[in-house]
């Protein structure tokens, strides 16, 4: 706290004003808290010591743009990954310009958060403000959805605790005790901020990882849960987040019009922030056209699933859309559901409740862990599909046969 430096919101204009307020504790300050990290980068650079089992991340919360699969550009609220940016320089000021990086830097889905059981996770959220909506003074938060035994102070529900104002940072702390597939999102004015895109993947790997279990004649060292028998072992895992957006709502937000809550109806169904065929593009999508967000790539998460014959693929499926239920189905291969809502699917005395299925139905805020086994005799180049059987949502707005679908490719 004593060496905290303060940054202006939009550059030098406010700098002098803020300097006058320097004696006040914590006013409009970017403040990344990360044990062992001295320059506020949320990473451990040369000379800095990472304490055991400690992870840090620095997220920005603001706005930005994405490109829909039909080519349309859409305005979003979202999170950006500011990890690695130096926020606590020694004088003279040599720090990175966090605000400039964060502003219009929102990505969809939000930067993925991957943790390991036993971690102590320090997550700093900096509210960089919404560039396209200077009329808004919205705070933001992170809700680690499904975190067991949560305390309100780090739960991100603004009604129940605190949320962070523009130009400032709040560091959340989580002791990671429970593996599984979670998700995270902003909980401030949740219907609006979530429809606008402040949603992301979050999952926790179990301590059983690294131990070898033989299951079904194959050795595994990676598992969905601490199953004790290797039955959740996998070769590859893919987070798949169901989402959908209402373009009318986003356009109303961008043009500062009344927001249609009651009339909200999503017309862009997506997996990991893209509609088909963008879902199977393995790379980050190019920045939105027209330099609307300063040329920042905002859709980095592919949904292309690739595996070899005989491999087991763990799908970490979550749903964070805000308007309806979706069913995701596989075509060509079964799914075995081994986890649900970030818990191993077993009874209290250890009875297996796993089940095989070709479809899972999730509302917002639900997750399942489903394992796909690629047949050993599958030919290279074989394609299976993961797609919504709410068939009208296989679309990108008015463009047919896109939307909520991706491919499972045998390599």
């Amino acid at each position, binding site marked *: 706290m004593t060496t905290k430096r303060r940054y202006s919101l939009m550059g030098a204009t406010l700098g002098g004003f803020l300097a006058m307020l320097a004696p006040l504790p*914590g*006013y*409009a*300050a970017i*403040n990344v*808290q990360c044990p062992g990290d001295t320059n506020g980068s949320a990473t451990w650079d040369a000379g800095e010591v990472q304490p055991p089992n400690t992870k840090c991340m620095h997220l920005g919360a603001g706005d930005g743009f994405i490109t829909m699969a039909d080519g349309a550009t859409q305005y979003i609220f979202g999170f950006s990954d500011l990890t690695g940016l130096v926020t606590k320089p020694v004088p003279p000021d040599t720090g990175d310009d966090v605000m400039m990086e964060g502003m219009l830097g929102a990505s969809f889905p939000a930067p993925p958060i991957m943790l390991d059981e036993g971690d*102590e996770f*320090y997550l700093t959220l900096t509210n960089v403000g919404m560039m396209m909506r200077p009329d808004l003074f919205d*705070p933001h938060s992170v*809700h680690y*959805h*499904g975190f*067991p*035994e*949560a*305390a*309100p*102070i780090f*739960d991100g*529900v*603004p*009604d*129940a*605790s*605190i*949320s*962070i*104002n523009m130009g*400032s940072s*709040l*560091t959340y*702390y*989580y*002791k990671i*005790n429970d593996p599984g597939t979670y998700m995270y999102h902003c*909980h401030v004015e*949740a*219907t609006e901020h979530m*429809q606008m895109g402040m949603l992301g993947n979050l999952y926790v790997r179990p301590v059983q990882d690294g131990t070898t279990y033989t299951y079904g004649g194959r050795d595994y060292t990676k598992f969905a849960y601490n199953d004790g028998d290797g039955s959740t072992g996998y070769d590859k895992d893919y987070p798949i987040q169901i989402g959908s957006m209402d373009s009318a709502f986003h356009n109303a937000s961008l043009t500062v019009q009344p927001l*249609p*809550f*009651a009339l*909200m109806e999503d017309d862009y169904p997506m997996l990991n922030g893209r509609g088909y065929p963008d879902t199977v593009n393995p790379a980050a999508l190019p920045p939105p056209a027209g330099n609307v967000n300063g040329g920042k790539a905002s859709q980095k998460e592919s949904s292309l699933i690739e595996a070899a014959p005989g491999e087991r693929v763990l799908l970490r499926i979550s749903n964070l859309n*805000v*308007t309806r*239920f979706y069913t995701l189905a596989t075509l060509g291969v079964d799914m075995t559901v081994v986890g*649900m*809502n970030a*818990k191993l*699917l077993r*009874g*209290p*005395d250890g*009875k297996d*409740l796993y089940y095989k299925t070709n479809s899972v139905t*999730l*509302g*917002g*805020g*639900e997750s399942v862990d489903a394992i796909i086994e690629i047949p050993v005799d599958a030919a290279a180049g074989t394609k299976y599909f993961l797609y919504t059987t709410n068939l009208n949502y296989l679309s990108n707005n008015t463009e047919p046969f896109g939307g909520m679908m991706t491919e499972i490719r045998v390599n």
Partner: protein
Amino acid sequence: MQTRVIRRALQVTVLGGVFMVLLAVNAGAMIQGITGTSFNLTATTGHISTPDSGSYLIWGYANGAGLAQYPGPTIIVNEGDQVQVKLTNSLTVAGAGPAPNVSIVFPGQHVVVSPTDPGIPGILANEAAPGGTVTYQFTAAKPGTYTYYSGTDSALQVEMGLIGAMIVRPASGANYAYNHPDTQFDRETLFLLSEMDPRIHQVVETFGPDAVAATGYLANYFPVLWFINGRAAPDTMADNGVPWLPNQPYNCMPMMNPGDRLLMRVIGGGRDMHPFHFHGNHARVIARDGRLLESTPGAGPDLSHELFTIQSQPGSTVDAIFGWTGQGLGWDIYGSPAEGPEYVHECMDMDNDDFDDMTHEYCPDHYKPFPVTLPGSLELTFGGFYSGSPFLGLVQSLPPGEGGMNPNGGYTYMWHSHTEKEMVNYDIFPGGMMTMLIIEAPGVMIH
């Protein structure tokens, strides 16, 4: 400081005298409803209020000559009771047509009609004609959570409000959900989830039910209001029976202390599915539709599993047990001496279960300091339920006008539909299918 002293004193009180209270379940911890074995329900009209200043005609079940209720009176009976429900049809409607017949179906029960009051035959159930009656009889054979609703023109009549909850308490006792020790609970809360398309109610009020068909609204259903126990947030958090909601007597205000077992009785009371998300912790789903999730009779809920979002389906019920202690947070929820001398407290674990024997504090985290520095108050936006402190049971100063809805410094959690669109009243956020759980500090009495 003052709060903490009181808390410790109350713990001593607990040692001395509260065992008597524990023997008899606190009435405030139980779901409100009508009890007995013989019930008189009346289908009649009323108006409900929504927090966006809406007022809508409903058809509701009333208790005897009382007011129409949305939802209807919660019928609470005991396992093995011979239950009789007499339904009187007092509906009146606008327009030229007659008032409709009404009825009740009781999913999960084997219902017969009274030979002396059989009503008139219907499709799903015998019906009461306008001004007439019908009497249903069944044995409450199996404990659990059930719903009851109109089996006559249900698409319209359930939308109009003819829906209620029924609880069958097991022979094991009122603080058990089923006849197994693993279903014991300390507190219970009803979550009857429903939605409403106001256009239908307006057409019925103005032109009568016969005019609905021509509008197509039942087929092109478009709800814009969402309810728990017949109230839209924030009314869900007002007291039971507040005078300004005469037709919506039931609140939904789950409250508990750390270590309590809270039974959630979740009912899909409308036509839509709802992902009901409860912040704070997982809950163990022990039963569906009044049937324990057990592999063999007597096994107990050995097929139960834990969820953080209950997928509530229309006409279905789910029983889940929720608990919270703050186990494993990695910091002391009552503060540590590192934060100041006023945070000195003990964690007494005589039975070696890792929890304080009275407060249920998780002792391995005892006195672990709060892990981060919180921003200054000018950097923060405060919620109405924020106590000013990250610690349980403490109320600390907040800027003028902030907080104030959490006088005991409890931990509060939003419990809501995660179809977040359903957390609005028409176009006004927040509202709808939402309430708050309050976990009060040990020793804080809950009413």
